[in-house]
């Protein structure tokens, strides 16, 4: 079936999963850059409280920084929007929307997603939600300022939240449509011979992520609708009786519960952590097998751990609420489930480490990122344990220690792996390689600067510095660790600097990069069996037939050290 393609149908309103994947990739990378810029303004304020922001300070509007000095409400806004943008508009769309859309159908040997039209709708919902989030900065009331967690009752009485909730509805719809597509595609459109025990780990990760999204996000949708009604319809789902705001008693009927929001929110948001993480782990598994030239250690254990994590992620949420007056017995329950969920995570990391044993590693660019993921994610994971135990969490809760922990997981963990994924699959997407030399500059600069930003947070947190503080110097006990803020801020700006080679490399290589053949990494999975870039709307010349498992590297008695899944 030949179709007539115009510019609009080919690049903008495309039904091709590959074009949609690239749309997701570029949009989410732009949002990541924007969300990162927001935090740079905050970091300046933390390192030099009350000093005018250099260079761009004078161009900022008065409600953000009059005279270049950041306004406290603007600090809250930037914090809320940094979290929202990085999570819902950055990492998830990159890990799931971009890589999932582009790679998953290729790895299972499908011509496209099961529902191409719904796939396109999913991207445009994401796009609309993103645009609305951006617009909220200039709409009356400004952008949301009650944190990405939007705790009631602050979120119900502070301006800007209504637009946030509407934008979130678009984003939730987008991920719902996406997850239906991913689940059905994986179940229904696998190439002949591709049984579940032969699926690449990346597909396992995406499939299980989609299941998490499917079950977790509707609950946030419900919670968000209730919050929206509290704001616009005068209901009081989250408003207790006779709540006093700004010296006045609210005239709502009352009777609601502020903790209800926290329960509903974390019922989504803890599984969400694994939505951020599992696609990254899937990418690392692909790159490690390829770079070590060995079958991945513990394939079944890793896939099983993914599934076990997904199940457990729905029964750990209240560990975010240990200081909310949770009953002691409930705390025990959630403490126990939290300790149990660390077991499969450690199992996965151990399998990855054991995969390296005795390997003759090819230190190519993607492999560097995958290798960096292991210890850095390890730090992120292990520093989570003290937050899962109530005795330590009561002290560490709401300090910079928590910020350090989840940034190690999401930035030096997920983000590093996603960057590795870009270098790994770039040749498949554009038929050209990214420049190795600039890639190395990007890699080393990024990894070192990231540690410079996030490691001091553990020290500050243990010294008792609270998160969300506009000016840390107002509390005397913070002064001892205040100089670390200068180190962190400097590292953050250096981190920005080292993204320039990446941005240049990405766009330059699309047009001018070194051309590659269809399987430049000598990999085994199906996406390397089709041309680079794959054929529009059908991917493969003829439908591949799968004959073996996904990681048949260095098979004894075979000349080449890799044996693709579809080759005889």
């Amino acid at each position, binding site marked *: 079936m030949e179709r007539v393609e115009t510019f609009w149908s080919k690049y903008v309103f495309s*039904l091709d999963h590959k074009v949609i994947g690239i749309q997701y990739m570029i949009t989410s990378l732009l949002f990541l850059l924007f969300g990162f810029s927001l935090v740079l303004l905050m970091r300046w304020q933390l390192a030099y409280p009350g000093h005018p922001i250099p260079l761009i300070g004078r161009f900022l509007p008065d409600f953000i920084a009059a005279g270049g000095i950041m306004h406290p409400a603007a600090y809250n806004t930037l914090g809320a929007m940094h979290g929202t943008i990085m999570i819902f508009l950055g990492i998830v769309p990159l890990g799931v929307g971009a890589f999932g859309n582009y790679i998953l159908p290729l790895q299972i040997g499908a011509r*496209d997603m*099961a*529902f*191409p*039209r*719904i796939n396109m709708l999913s991207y445009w919902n994401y796009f609309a939600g993103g645009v609305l989030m951006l617009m909220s900065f200039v709409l009356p009331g400004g952008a949301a300022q009650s944190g990405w967690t939007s705790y009631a009752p602050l979120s119900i009485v502070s301006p800007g939240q209504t637009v946030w909730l509407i934008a979130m509805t678009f984003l939730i719809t987008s991920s*719902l449509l996406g*997850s*239906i*597509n991913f*689940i*059905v595609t994986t*179940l*229904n*459109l*696998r190439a002949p011979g591709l049984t579940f025990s032969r699926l690449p780990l990346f597909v396992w990760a995406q499939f299980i992520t989609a299941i998490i999204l*499917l*079950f*977790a*996000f*509707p*609950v946030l*949708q*419900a*919670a968000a*609708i*209730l919050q929206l*009604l509290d704001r616009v*319809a*005068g*209901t*009081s*789902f989250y408003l207790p*009786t006779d709540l006093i705001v700004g010296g006045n008693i609210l005239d*709502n*009927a*009352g*009777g*609601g*519960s502020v903790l*209800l929001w926290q329960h*509903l929110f974390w*019922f989504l948001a803890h599984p969400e952590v694994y939505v951020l993480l599992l696609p990254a782990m899937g990418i690392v598994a692909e790159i490690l097998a390829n770079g070590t030239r060995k079958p991945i250690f513990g394939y079944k254990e890793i896939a099983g751990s993914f599934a076990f994590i997904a199940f457990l992620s729905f029964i750990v949420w209240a560990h975010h609420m240990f200081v909310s007056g949770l009953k002691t017995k409930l705390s025990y329950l959630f403490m126990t489930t939290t300790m149990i969920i660390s077991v499969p995570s450690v199992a996965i990391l151990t399998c990855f480490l054991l995969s390296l044993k005795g390997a003759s590693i090819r230190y190519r660019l993607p492999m560097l990122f995958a290798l960096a993921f292991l210890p850095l994610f390890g730090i992120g994971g292990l520093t989570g344990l003290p937050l899962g135990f109530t005795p330590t969490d009561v002290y560490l809760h709401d300090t910079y220690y928590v910020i350090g922990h989840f940034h190690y997981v999401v930035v030096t963990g997920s983000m590093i792996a996603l960057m590795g994924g870009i270098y790994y699959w770039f040749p498949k997407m554009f038929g050209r390689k990214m420049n190795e030399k600039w890639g190395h500059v990007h890699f080393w600069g990024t990894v070192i600067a990231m540690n410079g930003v996030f490691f001091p947070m553990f020290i500050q947190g243990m010294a008792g510095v609270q998160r969300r503080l506009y000016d840390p110097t107002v509390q005397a006990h913070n002064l001892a660790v205040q100089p670390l803020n200068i180190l962190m801020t400097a590292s953050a700006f250096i981190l920005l600097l080292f993204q320039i080679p990446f941005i240049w490399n990405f766009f330059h290589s699309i047009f001018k990069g070194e051309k590659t053949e269809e399987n430049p990494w000598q990999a085994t999975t199906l996406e390397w069996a089709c041309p680079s870039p794959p054929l529009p709307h059908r991917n493969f010349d003829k439908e591949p037939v799968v004959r073996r498992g996904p990681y048949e590297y260095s098979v004894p008695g075979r000349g080449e050290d890799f044996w693709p899944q579809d080759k005889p």
Partner: protein
Amino acid sequence: MSDSHAMADTNTGIPSGKLGMWVFLASEVMLFGGFISSYVILRTGSTNFVVPGKEMLGVPLAMVNTFVLITSSVTMVLALDAIEKGNVKGLIRNLIFTLILAACFLGIKSYEYPHKWHEGITISSGLFGSFYYTLTGLHMLHVVGGMAYMGYLLRNALAGRYTVQSHARVEYAGLYWHFVDLVWVILFPIFYLL
């Protein structure tokens, strides 16, 4: 594109459209589950949850409405049954019945709402009213969505697009419609009877 996939052989043997509908309904269960568990938590846990008297709620009328919706599920089953036997006229007739019953449901609700406002139960009068209008309102949106889908089926049926071999969408619409019915069967007792 989507049609060709739906008809193609799939790994599970289940058409993608049908599987997609089931997966979608699973997420709907979580959506309504989130609302209903919030309702249960606040109704049992809040110190300020006033449940209006039965006479204010108009239970008999709501009972009638429940029967109307259940009957519409029956006509939907008959519609699918008709086209499975190749009876296009039966399909059209039963789709029209289903649409009429759905409209009756909305009609009765639009009589009920002002009646409740008159009794002083509004969305902001207290938690019961807030949950009542939020959940029944969301359910009504689902009814309207279902009616739009059935209107689309009816148009296709009148154009003669459904045959014994090819009528997958009638089945998918049926799945959705039974789910909407099921939600009401849960909402009715928790708001009117308990």
